[in-house]
């Protein structure tokens, strides 16, 4: 079995250009995915690419590097709009998993139940890939294509997630529903971010649901409805079943589809109320 652990991004990209590699970072999805077998592809371990470790900011963006773990997110000094992502970070797997698993690994694994995707969607996250041929920036919604499918091209590596400061505003929340407390695949999860104009009126709304469709969904109709409403309104009462129209939950060992919809509706109400409370 071929294995490489380059220390420079250029070396990693050279290897990626020349062969088809399985990329290994935290390993918390990689190893269980082998199902007691040996890897079928050569393994490129990117954990020595220390340039990709940081969570940082410049004038335009917050940036989460490819090696940043969930524990790094919890510890990072970030504005309140990241609180939903931090809550997700505390609910991914267990503390041990959070210490190993990377945020970007969660995105690239492209599970319908990826805990990180809904809060990142509400933050308007952009995926930045690198390759020998150059960089690409793809909105998260377009990067995750389906169950275990992404728009990562051959030769590419995801270097960082960029959160535009234009959408990194307001406050946020996250609720995860599972059949046990830790180490559980979500039955449903909801992330919400709201911003207000300073006079009690909502001027930005982003709500996303995971585990109820192949890729997490934004509830755009509800977002539009919320814009212009006052934080003091009974926002939860505005949420209707029709707002979940784009969801296509499945029946599986974790829950029936009907329950997923029923519970999601309640989670959306709670998430919105929670954020409104924070902003008030």
């Amino acid at each position: 079995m071929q294995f490489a652990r380059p220390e420079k991004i250029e070396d990693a990209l050279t290897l990626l250009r020349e062969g088809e590699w399985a990329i290994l970072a935290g390993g918390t999805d990689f190893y269980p995915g082998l199902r007691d077998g040996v890897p079928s592809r050569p393994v490129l371990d990117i954990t020595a690419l220390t340039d990709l470790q940081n969570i940082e900011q410049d004038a335009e963006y917050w940036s989460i590097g490819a090696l940043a773990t969930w524990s790094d997110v919890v510890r990072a000094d970030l504005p309140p709009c990241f609180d939903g992502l931090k809550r997700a970070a505390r609910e991914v797997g267990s503390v041990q998993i959070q210490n190993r698993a990377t945020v970007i690994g969660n995105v690239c694994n492209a599970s319908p139940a990826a805990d990180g995707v809904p809060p990142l969607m509400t933050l308007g996250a952009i995926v930045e890939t690198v390759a020998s041929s150059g960089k690409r920036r793809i909105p998260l919604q377009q990067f995750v294509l389906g169950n275990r499918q992404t728009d990562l091209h051959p030769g590419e590596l995801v270097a960082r997630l960029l959160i535009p400061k234009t959408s990194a505003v307001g406050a946020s929340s996250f609720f995860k529903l599972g059949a046990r407390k830790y180490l559980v695949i979500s039955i449903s999860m909801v992330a919400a971010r709201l911003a207000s104009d300073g006079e009690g009126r909502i001027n930005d709304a982003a709500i996303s649901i995971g585990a109820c469709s192949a890729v997490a969904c934004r509830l755009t109709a509800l977002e539009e409805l919320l814009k212009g409403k006052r934080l003091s309104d009974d926002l939860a009462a505005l949420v209707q079943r029709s707002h979940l129209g784009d969801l296509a939950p499945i029946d599986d060992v974790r829950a029936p589809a009907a329950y997923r919809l029923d519970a999601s509706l309640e989670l959306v109400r709670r998430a919105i109320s929670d954020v409104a409370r924070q902003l008030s």
Partner: protein
Amino acid sequence: MHAGGDNQAAPVPARGEGVGSAIRHLDGRGKVTGSLNFGADHVPDGAVAVRVIRSPHHHARFTFGDRQAFLDAHPGIDLVLDAGDIAGRNCFGVIPPFADQPVFAEGKVIFRGEAVAAIVGDVDAVKAIDEASFPVSWETLDHVLTPKEAQSANAPRLHAGREGNVLVGGRVERGDPEKELAKSAHRVSLSTTTPSIEHAYIEPEAGYAVRDGDRIVVHGCTQAAHMDRESLADIMGLALEQVRVVPTACGGGFGSKLDISLQPYVALAAWKLNRPATICYTRSESMRSTTKRHPSDISVTIGCDADGRLTGMDFSGVFNTGAYASWGPTVANRVPVHASGPYLVPGYRAHSLAIHTNAPPSGAFRGFGVPQSAIAQECALDLLAEKAGLDRLEFRLKNALKNGEPTVTGQLFEKGVGIVECLQALKPAWQAANETAATFNASTNGSGLRKGIGVASCWYGCGNTSLPNPSTIRIGITAAGHVVLHQGAADVGQGSNTVIAQIAADALGVPVHSLQLVGGDTDLTPDAGKTSASRQTYVSGMAAKLAGEALRSQVLRLGNVSEAADIDVKPGRIGLSDGDVRANIDLNKIDNAENGYVLFAEETYDPPTQPLDENGQGVPYAVYGYGAQLVELTVDTRLGTVTLDRITAAHDVGKAINPMLVEGQIEGGIAQGIGLALMEDYQPGRTENLHDYLIPTIGDVPPIECHIVEVADALGPYGAKGLGEHVLIPTAPAILNAIRHASGVLVTNLPATPDKVRAAILEGAEHG
């Protein structure tokens, strides 16, 4: 109440003070430092690896292809084993008259995970094999996974001679249940179902075998070394003396490691190649191939009079016993004896049936079917209490069995029936919890959160049901002055290595930490029976007490001192002090080196039981243990999620030989009961891993308060009773009763996952 608190120094009791002391596990240091080997911890030099090829189908015919071509294509693979390699009988089973399971299936498999062959060779070569490349072709057959399907007219017959796929039934009848129920002021009928449950011990099956001339030595995790030995001799066509089984430290068994698993595969490989052979099951393999808790389908009707006294009970339980017999007959026999719970029930009828299906074999799992029957019985009791207009705890107290009252098998105990004391112990917590819940529920405006409390009882007979199950313990003193305890009761984490030593030390009259322990080796330790049926503290404990006392008598006689004398075993001598009298035994002058000991005793204890008659009347167990648990929880009625707030457990252990280990058993049993109630559901082909099969995490287990109740038993060592299985029984029904108290709905199809709780609430709202 809390023995052995975290910051206290571990006790080191003096002579005569071992029993009742919360000493740490005597094998604990080795487990913590890693010096003690579990099944996979030691790989002998030059060992080959063994990997079992298993059926991917529930029911199929199969034929092997070109084996030589497979061997030629895979250098490093030395051997392929199948049924043709078995020199003895290709059949095993824990209850010999029902033995029906092949080591390797012959032409047909009847469950997914059944072994058909094994590949043996270099460790890396074996690991690298893609199982799809193994030359076997399958022809799938219709399968049945539920008793209902298995009993339909066109269902496949899984075993010759077992009509309708019925393995066996059980019954207990007493009085006239029909008449009693007919005249009852209040009656409740309830049906419940529980799914297949995986034991999910931390350590998957692992071990190794070494051929030693014409003997085979098997090291591995097990709950029953001597039973393994008999099975292996039978399978390999060897004399019993040619088989040695050496249990490794065991990372949990819970009943499943009573049946053999890896042992014949490594033994056959080592025998054939004359090289050590190792195996370590993957988690998925462990889950697919080993036994499960019986899925159950239970109906019960219970009645009481206008005063709330139980009158009659009619119970029927159908158990899915899976592909092979395993412990199915034990479940069928135990359930009717226990399905009344620890209550006085004048008119009683309980029938059970074990039905074969193409599911994995259902076997022993902490409680042998009783946790399932207790769910139906204790939830029905709650409903009945409400109909009778009585507090649920008071209703149980009113009906709790007392000394001198007949059990449902007509057995009378003059002393030791401790259920009243357990229920009484819960009373203060029950009253406080009721108030807390009422206050909370009155104040939560519109949150959808509701608190509820529930209670349930248990009783459980210790040892085999009306069958002999002796234990033998040996203890000796060497010329050098070492006191050595030969203790063969498998310690699967529950603590028999420690508890049996505490009893033996006190019986002999030496400090427990002065004992040297020899444990778990069929060449070195006499048969202490299997670690199951909550029998080791009672049965092996009694054997240890008798052996210790016998050795003490020898010593006292030699020193010509009285019963009251103190024994002090020193290098080469024993000092005796009896009041003012001092005596000394020079161990080097004793001309009797039997078994390497100058002084030695070996004693056997077998519980006094009597056979059950055709109505199940008799003395099935010499000793029962009792318990009751109180659950406080919060239901999020809009999501259907359940958060456990606190569990208070009161268990009558007769005498807590080691209070810390009693607490450990209570906490562990409750954790498993939580899984049974709220999340566990084994589905072959769907939840064969610990990613999809959920067991409780630390976040799902609430604070647990233990009340250790000590109502001395007439027979047990120092009054002790068994505990291991009891602790799991009340948890699930108490949780379900608390969910109902909180939300108004009783979930009867376990597990009570959020979607089921929510669906029941929505349905209740529709009908309400």
